[in-house]
């Protein structure tokens, strides 16, 4: 066993770090550091900077524009992105529909969509969940009926992150209602400007509106937008879920956030007048979360090493999702506790860049409650943690 990365891996890490330092725009850095809202343009600018270096899609094969990295390099890259105040890469194009298209799509689809994903010219969203199909996604009902050269789509999707920004949606639709549910699902690419599409924002309990309902009313989609074969949509969706494992643990980002909590705790007064970080109870909580994060970090490294040694990656990724999200949520709890009663003021304006008024209480307090509330979603989305445990139980433990 050897914890050291190779010389070339270390050099690679330095290269990535330098790139981020030199190419992350200051205004974006500032927003991420201060938990301010990011606009679509912020995400696009950063993604284009990465793409210019050929680094936007580290998981893609070289033939489609990937940089040809080893698994370790991909890990290092994600680690550095998380450790610096960079915006998350929007996963829908690069990590989700892109791999499905280059693996199962037609030549025309590859030619048409892949470069536009890399150039961040098409912004994608994911049409999966429905009001009646959450954990039981296979029971989805949005219907696509063949009519000449088109599918006619009717129904609705919910929890569609960033649909209001999207140019395209990859959508799971039911093309055959008469077979077993999983076998009647198809993977359809839908232009969000199509007539018949209505987008309704869903306000979340923190006051944000990143998610939406999307309604389809006789939306005509060209048949050439079907990916692969009819009835194979569920297979492609499962492929997609198993495909992107780097980043779900979010270790580097959590480390950065934990460092942020410590800074807050140094600035906050504790009950005894000294800094909160000297309060034994708070300090013990910090230590606990940091230890849990270390366990997650090394678990991810072991899985990585195992995969690099040729052992097929398995459903252990679910462990990373469960623990990763639990730790993220624990960190939001620490921030909430740190700011005490200054979590109460509701100042949504303070969470947008360019707000110039004096904060109510310390400047970092305004985001504490909204972020805590918003992050309750992490144990629900991407397959709830309960579902993740079912997957592990079945696939790893045979239960």
């Amino acid at each position: 066993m050897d914890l050291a990365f190779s010389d070339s891996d270390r050099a690679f890490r330095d290269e990535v770090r330098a790139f981020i330092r030199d190419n992350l725009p200051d205004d974006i850095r500032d927003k991420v550091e201060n938990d301010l809202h990011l606009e679509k343009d912020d995400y696009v600018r950063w993604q284009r900077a990465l793409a210019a270096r050929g680094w936007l899609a580290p998981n893609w094969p070289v033939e489609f524009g990937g940089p040809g990295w080893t698994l370790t390099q991909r890990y290092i890259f994600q680690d550095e992105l998380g450790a610096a105040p960079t915006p998350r890469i929007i996963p829908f194009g690069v990590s989700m529909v892109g791999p499905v298209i280059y693996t199962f799509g037609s030549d025309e689809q590859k030619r048409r969509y892949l470069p536009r994903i890399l150039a961040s010219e098409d912004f994608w969203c994911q049409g999966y969940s429905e009001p009646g199909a959450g954990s039981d996604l296979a029971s989805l009902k949005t219907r696509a009926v063949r009519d000449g050269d088109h599918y006619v789509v009717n129904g609705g999707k919910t929890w569609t992150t960033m649909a209001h920004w999207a140019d395209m949606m990859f959508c799971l639709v039911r093309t055959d209602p008469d077979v077993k549910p999983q076998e009647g699902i198809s993977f359809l690419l839908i232009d969000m400007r199509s007539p018949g599409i209505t987008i309704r924002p869903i306000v979340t309990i923190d006051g944000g509106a990143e998610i939406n309902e999307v309604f389809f009313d006789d939306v005509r989609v060209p048949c050439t937008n079907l990916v692969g074969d009819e009835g194979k949509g569920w297979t492609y969706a499962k492929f997609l879920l198993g495909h992107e494992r780097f980043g779900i643990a979010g270790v580097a980002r959590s480390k950065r956030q934990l460092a942020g909590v410590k800074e807050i705790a140094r600035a906050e007064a504790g009950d005894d007048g000294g800094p909160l970080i000297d309060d034994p109870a708070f300090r013990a909580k910090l230590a606990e979360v940091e230890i849990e994060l270390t366990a997650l970090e090394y678990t991810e490294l072991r899985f990585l090493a195992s995969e690099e040694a040729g052992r097929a990656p398995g459903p252990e990724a679910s462990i990373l999702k469960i623990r990763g999200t639990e730790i993220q949520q624990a960190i939001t709890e620490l921030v909430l506790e740190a700011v005490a009663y200054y979590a109460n003021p509701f100042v949504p304006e303070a969470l947008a860049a360019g707000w110039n008024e004096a904060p109510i209480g310390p400047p970092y307090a305004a985001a504490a409650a909204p972020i805590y509330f918003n992050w309750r979603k992490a144990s629900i989305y991407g397959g709830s943690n309960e579902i993740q445990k079912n997957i592990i139980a079945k696939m790893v433990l045979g239960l």
Partner: protein
Amino acid sequence: MDFSLTTEQQLLKDSVERFVEEDYDFRTRREIAASDEGFRRENWARFAELGWLGAALPESCGGSGGGPVETMVIMEAFGRGLVTEPYLSSVVLGGGLVARHGSAAQREAVLPALVEGETMLAFAYAEPRSRYDLAHVATRAAREDGGYRLDGRKAVVFGAASADRIVVSARTAGGERDGAGITLFLVDATAPGLARRDYRTVDGLRASEVMLDGVRVAADAVLGEPDGALPVIEEAIDHGIAAVAAEAVGAMQVLNDTTNEYLKTRRQFGRPIGDFQVLKHRMVDMLTRYEEARSMCCMVTLKLGETPAERAKAASAAKVQIGRSGRFIGQQAVQLHGGIGITDELHVGHYFKRLTMIDTLFGNVDHHLRRFASLAC
């Protein structure tokens, strides 16, 4: 051993619950919370008419002569409806302080008007750097011209914007964190030199930063003994803890009932999700935490009249329980509702937010663990 309510208390409970059920549904609550003032004056007038404002205040001041149990009954029902009307700050904190420690003149001037819904109060004790240390008072009260001059800043004062009078803790002697040397003052909200920065809170209420810049008060504005206010403040906060414990229990019960119902009606994988043992057990855990919270709420309510040390221990124990139960029930109610639990549209998230903020009031779990330990060990 008796945990039952008297006939009058049961009638009070029924009438507050009826108000919440008939006139304070979630949609109404949403409208009220979004309004300018954040509560309805008509409701406050109705509370006065129904005798709720004076329910725990002495008969000599126009109240009904009830006590902590009456407060508990009212606050629990309010918690069920996420009622925003500032009963806690005005009646429990402000009114309680004046009733227990006001001079005859102060009681006469404030309490009948409070009971009648004509005067509202607030209690300004916390400061920007004080955290949960009630003795940490930097706001100064200097003797001047036979009265006092107040200078300083108070943090997150609930109900300050609608208050006619504010009870303010300020230091008349000693160092910033000394237990001795703190005095309470009954200050007119319109006093020159008193400024506010008003804001909404994340759970739909109203609070303010209160700045005192050369606020002059007469000597008879002192509430209770000069320099000796700390035990009075602690007592008021412990009463506040008992009240929010009841409010939290009401909110927890709504979340549990809602979640329980959802588990029975939401179908996935061809069956109600409540069929899954993991969720059954989770719901049982929610029930258990709720029962414990209710028990601790009863306990602290019954112990408010004990010695200060016993009362403080009871309040700290209850606050720890409420914080833990509230967090668990709030988080799990959201989790078990899945995606819709995160939406603003559904009431679940709003109850979750209120329970979360209750933990930040009057000392969080860590603070009260420490206080309990220092009293108990």
